[in-house]
């Protein structure tokens, strides 16, 4: 399979990462492709934010890896987890724009983004349980932390797809848009984000992640040190100067 199935398109400082909507890649090939694209996005400082979306009204479809032995399955899970960890730790805001049915690996990938928006007709779920399969790329853990244990169990046990308004209510997605305007609304949202300080965006997202699974007091201590470090940056001077001068900031990210 060629990498052409997964494209990066640059639009100013924003990169669209278009997943192969209908190409039937194996999960391993798909994940290897995503990893290469992430390496590329991480290396380009001029890319300030990433918009992950599908093609042709489908967010992401992957095929089968064929029969796997238990060690092969564990290796695949470990590899996929490392790819999605690097997505989570990209250091740039990543917004997922979701359309169609977002299931399996596609939903696991969306869960590793900064947050997701979706078209109002989208549906979400992990139907693979009917074939005895569970999310293996961090999906069970990210889902439970985001929507709570009860909703997560309901989704995993039943394999049912939930509609978009339900996904909004349980916090799986942050905003819904009409299908025709999904991509332009997601772009506008990310463009607004990308006018902010890249350094503050990165540190803020890292703090949310780093402090979530530890006790609040220790987490606040981490935050205190990260806050102090902001005052050694150009972004802080530019942010506050421009605020006081009532002009738009020009952040450099350092």
């Amino acid at each position: 399979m060629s990498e052409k199935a997964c494209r990066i398109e640059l639009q100013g400082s924003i990169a669209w990462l278009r997943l192969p909507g209908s190409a039937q890649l194996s999960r391993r090939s798909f994940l290897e492709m995503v990893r290469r694209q992430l390496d590329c996005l991480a290396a380009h400082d001029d890319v300030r934010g990433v918009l992950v979306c599908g093609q042709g009204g489908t967010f992401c479809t992957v095929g089968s890896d064929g029969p796997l032995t238990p060690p092969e399955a564990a290796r695949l899970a470990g590899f996929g987890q490392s790819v999605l960890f690097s997505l989570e730790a990209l250091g740039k805001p990543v917004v997922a724009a979701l359309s169609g049915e977002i299931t399996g690996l596609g939903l696991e990938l969306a869960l590793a983004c900064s947050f997701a928006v979706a078209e109002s007709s989208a549906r979400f779920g992990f139907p693979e349980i009917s074939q005895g399969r569970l999310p293996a790329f961090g999906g069970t853990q990210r889902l439970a932390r985001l929507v709570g244990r009860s909703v997560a169990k309901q989704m995993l046990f039943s394999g049912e797809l939930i509609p978009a308004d339900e996904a909004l209510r349980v916090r799986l997605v942050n905003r819904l848009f009409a299908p025709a305007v999904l991509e332009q609304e997601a772009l506008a949202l990310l463009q607004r984000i990308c006018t902010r300080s890249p350094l503050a965006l990165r540190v803020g997202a890292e703090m949310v992640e780093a402090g979530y699974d530890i006790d609040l007091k220790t987490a606040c201590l981490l935050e205190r040190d990260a806050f102090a470090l902001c005052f050694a940056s150009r972004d802080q001077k530019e942010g506050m100067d421009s605020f006081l001068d009532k002009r738009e900031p020009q952040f450099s990210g350092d």
Partner: protein
Amino acid sequence: MPYKKMRIETRKRVGYLILDGGSRFNKLSVTAIRELKRAFTQLEAADEVGCIVLSGWPGESFAVGADIGQMRSFTPLEGLQFSELGQSLFEQMERCTKPIVGALNGITMGGGFDLALACDIRIASDKALIAHPGARLGIITGFCGTQKLPRLVGKSRAREIFLTCDSYGAAEALQMGLVDRLVAADQYWADVITLAERIATMPSRSLTWAKQLINLAEDTNLQSGCLAEQAAAALCGSEYLGTSKSVCG
């Protein structure tokens, strides 16, 4: 010693701590934070107070962050000290044995948002406008917001709030779980008073334990939390026996 940035009024067992710095926005300057610490110490010690209301009512703002002009020239060490001061206020509010109702009457931004997060309950007027615009200023918050907000509204919504720096109206704040109640402006203060006076009539020992047990639930495994709950039950039970109050009607 009188307060410059706020005033305290006590009526019917409710202590109203009203932020009023004399300007449009109630800024969380070093002076304001020190005064807040002193005010909470005073209210905690006051036997006639059973519940505390923190608000900027009837002003335009609840509270906003620090003075940007002052913060502009902070060194990293000064940033650290400022964060320490703010975090010590929020810890004091969490440890305070009396319930603190945050009455978000209007603009609630940055450090003011974090002040609201340190309250036990948030009740918003439909004039409330909430934002965390640190990334617009080239900073993150140092007042526990990056930690408390994800725990309150989930990581994805917290990231959206921090990344976009957008302002959210009261209805959206209610839907996200940022605030617990929303009241129309003309009815607002009357409802705040009703809620606070109701809480203030409850047995103070039970209020203290309820607050501490819920705060404990945040970071404790279930078994340890349940053990603390048993201890609370024993202590509250002995209080009922001692005062011959009937718990069964």
